[in-house]
């Protein structure tokens, strides 16, 4: 009963990890961002994380901040994700929203859950909402059947890993390093260790890894121990460079090859 989990299991059945692409809606403008999302799907992304522009994105590094800042200054926000979600669904990928908490609270927690479900959205990643503070969100997602993805980090204690995984539906987002989003030269050992610790308590729930993955080799490396590979800043960088939808399509194609490398999955 989870669109995200079904898609990740389908990838697993093909002997590969799922590819999850992040793009913020509204950069460089709403239409162009939606075109880039569709192109990322056509290039091979299984799931699109539709980013909500937010004025104070505390978990983002400079690349995503720069794109978000443009979108925020243009007046874009949570309502703009709904058409993006519908377009991603029509293109055949699973649409997942990534939003800081205040835009959702401002929109109305229940109203947003209803509108997102109606637009065909699968669920939401909430980077600054921990399950401890999420009672209204747990209720709204239970009522509408939306997936809810919380984060675990290398610093999470075993008790917090267990509690967070128990609150997730769809998958759990394992932040590969201590830090903000951005491309990194290497994916550190912490990612593998965190996934291994999470596996001890996650049962059937897929584990997807994000933060720092930017190329096919890193995607292949992460695919060897995780169920999904999340790539954000590398897509956004191509947008900032003006590569537009073709840049997103080409990056998806590269990464899709990475998550399919033979023998990467045990």
């Amino acid at each position, binding site marked *: 009963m989870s669109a995200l989990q079904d898609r990740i299991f389908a990838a697993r059945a093909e002997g590969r990890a799922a590819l999850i692409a992040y793009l913020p809606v509204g950069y460089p403008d709403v239409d162009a961002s939606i075109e880039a999302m569709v192109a990322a799907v056509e290039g091979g992304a299984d799931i699109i994380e539709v980013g909500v522009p937010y004025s104070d994105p505390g978990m983002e590094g400079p690349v995503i901040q720069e794109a978000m800042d443009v979108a925020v200054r243009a007046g874009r926000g949570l309502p703009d994700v709904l058409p993006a979600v519908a377009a991603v669904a029509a293109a055949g990928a699973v649409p997942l929203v990534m939003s800081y*908490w205040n835009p*959702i*609270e401002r929109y109305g927690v229940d109203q947003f859950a209803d509108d997102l479900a109606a637009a065909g959205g699968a669920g939401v990643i909430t980077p*600054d909402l921990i399950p401890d503070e999420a009672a209204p969100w747990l209720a709204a997602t239970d009522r509408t059947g939306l997936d809810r993805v919380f984060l675990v*980090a290398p610093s999470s204690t075993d008790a917090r890993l267990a509690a967070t995984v128990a609150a997730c539906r769809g998958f759990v987002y394992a932040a590969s390093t201590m830090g903000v989003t951005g491309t990194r030269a290497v994916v550190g050992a912490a990612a593998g260790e965190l996934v291994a610790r999470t596996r001890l308590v996650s049962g059937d729930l897929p584990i997807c890894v994000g933060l720092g993955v930017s190329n096919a080799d890193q995607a292949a490396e992460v695919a060897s121990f995780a169920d999904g590979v999340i790539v954000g800043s590398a897509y956004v960088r191509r947008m900032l460079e003006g590569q537009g939808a073709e840049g997103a399509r080409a990056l998806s194609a590269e990464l899709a090859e990475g998550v399919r490398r033979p023998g990467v999955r045990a």
Partner: protein
Amino acid sequence: MRPEWPDATGHFGPYGGRFVPEALIAALDELTAAYEAMRVDPAFLAEFARLQRDYTGRPSPLTDVPKFAEHCGGARVLLKREDLNHTGSHKINNVLGQALLTKRIGKPRVIAETGAGQHGVATATAAALMGLSCTVYMGEEDTRRQALNVARMRLLGAEVIPVTTGSRTLKDAINEAFRDWVTNVETTNYVFGTVAGPHPFPAMVRDFQRVIGDEAREQVLERCDRLPDVVLACVGGGSNAIGIFTAFVPDNGVRLVGLEAGGDGVETGRHAATITGGDPGVLHGARSYLLQDDNGQTIESHSISAGLDYPGVGPEHSYLHDLGRAEYRPVTDAEAMEAFALLCRTEGIIPAIESAHALAGAMKVGRELGPDALLLVNLSGRGDKDVETASAWFGLGGHPAPTDADDRAVEAGRGADPGPGLDTDQQPTEGAVTSGEAVAGQDAEEQA
């Protein structure tokens, strides 16, 4: 007596809590546990008391200001002199506590955000004293209007990083500090400057700042044989206000009034009056009132005072507001600058522009209550850092034409050339003290 709030997970009624990435939860838990142990540890209490006395210069005095009080409807006005603390504001009270906590958890580096620069200076000072390395994030706009404090921090050995994202003020400096913290949390403690942010900061900073009200309550009782009718303080994030309010919260007959930065006027939309002009939401790790638009984007605040130029406010203030225990009122730039000039000329005290908002509040409330009223005002800081801004506001001579020596000092402090006086485009608003009046030292009576 410690207030019965927050609860064990940092909630003040519906406010507060922790809205941060999971990666920071372990560090916040560590801080909470270490702080709970430290705050009842006699060795810490003795060391903290020693530093407050011998280093900060506590207790800070209580000053009767009868000539200024003539402009406050003739009420009696007492100033709690946090401006006389070492480093020039109340910020040092909190920083010494958090620096001792940093030593206790064994981290060699501290980071801080700063708006007016007073918290940055205080943190740089404590870091120098205790041998910690120190990085301060400051909005680029604030590095210009508070250039003196940038130079002070650098003299004290701190690294000052101008923040160029977003509105380039305090809110963005906080974002950058959190990003640094999540990346370097193994080695670094975040010394937060006000009663906002995720649990445990609002409660911990309150505990470190409550000395202001604890002392003042005793001092007022001793001097006046009664409690004040009203306690007033400016509210940026709210630490000096919580600091002076806390001792009086159980005294139901004492009105608590927080003065928010009204900027050009709340009705213009260009202000920083978070409780007056905002509504509840989540920012910087806690639920509280904030200035936001329909999409939940934080609205950029505006104030002549860098230390009040913040679109959020500490959760305990939101709670005290909703409970009806404290009142929050806006004070415009012009009203604050009028009070600033008055205190300078009537009492020989140059206040911080932040604190001038509290003084302007006393002028209003005193006129409402009349001569029988007893007002206690927190003078949270001194105005040395604001001399450039005030000179520009009042159009005083010699500005903005820095000497060569000034130029060099400015270069050293800012590391870039932001040009003279940020506020050269600002004009006194109607009702403010004009430059002529300010220079001439117009007779106090004529102002009333």
